C-alpha cells in the first residue's frame, strides 16, 4: 500500500495521502513536512465524521472535494458506494491540477480497492518512521519521518539530532500530543499549523521546531493565542534568509 500512497504523494501539489477506515482509524499515510502520523490520525477521525454526514444526505457516495483558501482536500470512497468502508484522503496545496490529479487518484483508488478485496490492506501499519517520501537517497531524512518537501524549499540540515526533534504535532488529541507548546483555543492551534506549513515551504520540515521555539519566545507565560500572532510571524520570518521569501511568508499569514 505504501507504494500506492507514495505514487499519489509524488503528484505535484500533493502534501499527504491518507487511508482511514469507516470508524476514522488511520490505516496508513504518506505525507510531507508537517503531515506526520499524529496529524493524519487526528484528521482521519474528523474526516470520517464528514463522510458519515454526507451519507445522511445521500447514502451512496463516491467522492467528496473540499476547496480551501490555501489548498484542497479530496476524499475517495474505496468501498461500495452504499457501504461504510475505507476512504482515501488526498491533501493538496492550491497548485494541484485537479483534472490531472483526478486520473492519478482514480488509478490509486482502483489499486487500493483491489488491495482491500484481496485482504492485503493491513490495518495500523502507519508509523512515523514511514511517513514521508521514500527516496532511498534520503534515508536519514526518511528515517526521521521527513524529507525535502515543498517546491522551493531549501536543503535541509543534516544534523540527525535536530531532525529527530521534529516529530511533534499541535493536535491536542494526537499520540505525540501538544507536548511543548500550548494553544489557547482551536483557532490558535490552527494558526500554529498554518505557520508551520507556510514556514515549511521555505525552510523544510524543521519548521515545526522553529514554530515551537518562537511560541516560547513570544508567549512564554501563557498558552499561545491569536493576540500574539503578529509577533510570532515576525519572529518566524527572521528564520527565512531570502527577503522575497520572507515577504511572501508574512503575506501568507497576514490574516490570522
Amino acid at each position, binding site marked *: 500500500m505504501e507504494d500506492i500512497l507514495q505514487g499519489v504523494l509524488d503528484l505535484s501539489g500533493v*502534501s*499527504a495521502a491518507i487511508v482511514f477506515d469507516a470508524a476514522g482509524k488511520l490505516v496508513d499515510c504518506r505525507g510531507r513536512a*508537517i*503531515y506526520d502520523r499524529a*496529524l493524519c490520525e*487526528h*484528521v482521519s477521525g*474528523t*474526516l470520517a*465524521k*464528514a463522510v458519515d*454526514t*454526507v451519507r*445522511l*444526505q*445521500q*447514502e*451512496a*457516495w*463516491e*467522492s*467528496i*472535494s*473540499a*476547496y*480551501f*483558501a*490555501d*489548498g*484542497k*482536500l479530496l476524499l475517495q470512497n474505496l468501498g461500495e*458506494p452504499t457501504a461504510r468502508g475505507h476512504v482515501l484522503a488526498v*491533501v493538496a496545496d*492550491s497548485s494541484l491540477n*485537479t483534472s490531472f490529479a483526478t486520473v492519478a487518484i482514480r488509478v490509486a483508488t482502483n489499486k487500493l480497492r483491489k488491495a482491500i478485496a484481496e485482504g492485503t490492506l493491513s490495518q495500523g501499519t502507519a508509523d512515523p518512521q514511514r511517513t514521508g517520501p521514500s527516496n532511498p537517497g534520503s534515508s536519514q531524512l526518511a528515517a526521521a519521518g521527513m524529507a525535502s518537501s515543498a517546491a522551493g524549499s531549501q536543503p535541509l540540515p543534516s544534523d540527525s539530532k535536530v531532525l529527530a526533534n521534529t516529530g511533534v504535532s*499541535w*493536535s491536542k488529541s494526537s499520540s505525540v500530543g501538544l507536548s511543548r507548546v500550548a494553544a489557547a483555543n*482551536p*483557532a490558535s*492551534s*490552527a494558526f500554529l*499549523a*498554518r505557520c*508551520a*506549513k*507556510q514556514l515549511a515551504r521555505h525552510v523544510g520540515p524543521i519548521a515545526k521546531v522553529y514554530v515551537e521555539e518562537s511560541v516560547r519566545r513570544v508567549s512564554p507565560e501563557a498558552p499561545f493565542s491569536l493576540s500574539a500572532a503578529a509577533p510570532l510571524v515576525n519572529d518566524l520570518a527572521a528564520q527565512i534568509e531570502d527577503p522575497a521569501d520572507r515577504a511572501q511568508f508574512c503575506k501568507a499569514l497576514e490574516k490570522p
Partner: protein
Amino acid sequence: MPIPPVIAKLPEVKSALVSDRQGGIVEVVREREGESAAAVVGFLSSTLGEAGEHLGLGALRRIAYSGPARGAVVAVAGAELVAAFVEPPSSLPSVERLLSGALGQKEA
C-alpha cells in the same frame, strides 16, 4: 442572501437552500426536507472546515460531493452556506462553476 436565480432555475438543480453556518435554514427551493438538509450542510461545512484548519489549508470555500445518482455543491458565502443538490452528478462541475461565478468566487 437569496439563492442565486441562475442556480435555482437550472433543471439539473433538483433543490437548493441557503443556511447559516450552524445549519439554520434561511431559504429553500424545491427541498421537502429543508431543515434536515440545512443541518447536514451546516455540520458538513463545520467538520470539513475543522479538518482544513488542522491541515493548514485555510478557510473553507466550497464542498462538492457526488454519488452514482446525485451530487451536491455547498459554497461558503460569508456567514451563510449556499447548497445545490444536483441530478445527474455529471452536471456537478458546471453547477459548481455557475455557483462560484454567482457568488463572485474565484475558481479553485
